[in-house]
């Protein structure tokens, strides 16, 4: 029998090694798998490659991973977080800055068997021409730039080639989940959770509630269980840092 429901977050996430790449759902404060991020901090994992739209907008969730210096590379569209800014400019984190729609589409592509696609988004900008910093040294000098993107014209419009963004793991947050991994979300908290779950080779879901199989209507499943390998019930505050916010 399939039972993807796990009881112990630390045991569940123990398979995530240092250096892993992880796609994380959420946008702002909605749909962020906070408990999973914090459990990873408890496990003291480091050198992570995090793929997430934001780098956290407070010291919880992805923000805690940033604040505790656990990230070696960040791929996302809007890492507007002071700790992140400091880490990036001091050379401790590499940044792959990606337009938000391209980010979502690259994550979906990874899960959909599309190795690459063209889009007009970012064509002709610094993000496409290799003119944007990817890494600084400790002295504020750029030591690496984003790679220039292949360009091809379709219907008179210059488009850049974007590749699928597959990750070792994904952390997502749902409203409801069942033992099969079927997920349902509410309103704006669906956001990157669907593309992230598609991008991850192994997807962990933190769910607000675990429901019986059949409780989610077949037409109300927002992501079928085949994309999800592990499910755990969210426990508010579990694994939160004892002095929350102290690192800010």
């Amino acid at each position, binding site marked *: 029998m399939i039972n993807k429901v796990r009881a112990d977050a630390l045991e569940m996430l123990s398979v995530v090694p240092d250096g892993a790449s992880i796609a994380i759902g959420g946008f702002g404060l909605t749909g962020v798998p906070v408990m999973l991020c914090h459990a990873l901090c408890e496990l003291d994992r480091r050198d992570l490659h995090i793929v997430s739209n934001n780098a956290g907008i407070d010291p919880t969730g992805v923000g805690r991973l940033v604040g505790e210096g656990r990230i070696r590379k960040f791929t996302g569209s809007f890492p507007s977080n002071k700790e992140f800014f400091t880490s990036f400019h001091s050379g401790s984190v590499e940044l792959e800055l990606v337009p938000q729609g391209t980010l979502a589409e690259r994550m979906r592509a990874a899960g959909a068997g599309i190795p690459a696609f063209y889009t007009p988004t970012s064509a002709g900008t610094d*993000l496409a021409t290799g003119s944007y910093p990817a890494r600084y040294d400790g002295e504020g000098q750029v030591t690496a730039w984003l790679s220039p993107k292949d360009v091809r014209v379709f219907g008179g419009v210059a488009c850049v080639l974007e590749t699928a963004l597959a990750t070792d793991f994904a952390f997502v947050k749902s409203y409801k989940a069942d033992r099969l991994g079927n997920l349902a979300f509410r309103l704006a908290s669906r956001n990157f959770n669907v593309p992230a779950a598609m991008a991850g080779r192994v997807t962990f879901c933190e769910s607000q509630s675990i429901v019986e199989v059949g409780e989610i209507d077949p037409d109300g499943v927002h992501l079928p269980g085949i994309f999800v390998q592990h499910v755990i019930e969210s426990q508010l505050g579990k694994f939160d840092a004892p002095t929350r916010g102290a690192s800010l």
Partner: protein
Amino acid sequence: MSEPDALGWSREELATRAALDVPDGAYVNVGIGIPMLIASHIPEDREVWFHTENGVLGLGGVPEADEVDLDMQNAGKEYAKIVVGAAAFDSALSFAIVRGGHLDIAVLGGMQVASMGDLANWSVPGRTPGVGGAMDLVTGSKQVWVLMEHTDRAGTPKLMRHCTLPITGTRCVTRVYTTLGVFQPAGSHFECLDLAPGVDIETVRALTDAEVTLARDSRE
């Protein structure tokens, strides 16, 4: 109407002026800042649908404290309401809407707009990195409106011959609403479609890097 010490429209007046041009039935994405003010100034006889990039079509206003739904924020990461008939979706579909050409208007803030329609609004060297959905919005929307102050705080023009800041997209802006007036990028110059009360075209020209022509039916 305008603030005593400021020339032209206030931010609120600017949003009100732009809102007048949003047609009934339009699907609109409004960016953070002045653009978001548009939503509360749409004339009452028009039904306009607001898209928020984080995955909802049918974004509503700001909730009272007891109305806050923790699963509902706007693109500015503020708690928000939805309207009756709203639809939620994931980020991939949200940007399929943006990039697939389905939005009638994207309203964005701007640092510089060039007369060819190029926009710079995402990157200032040394500032926090972040591009968000700006590059997606400018390539996908049927119309791209920029709402911004006519100059920066130091009085430096923002309507340019050529952008000097990193661009968000080329030839994408269809209209610019500044504190001084309404402008259309027209290739070699901007065409002025409207002027704020008390503002004359010579004042605009003095505060604009690119050339500005006056459209026949403009107010002056």
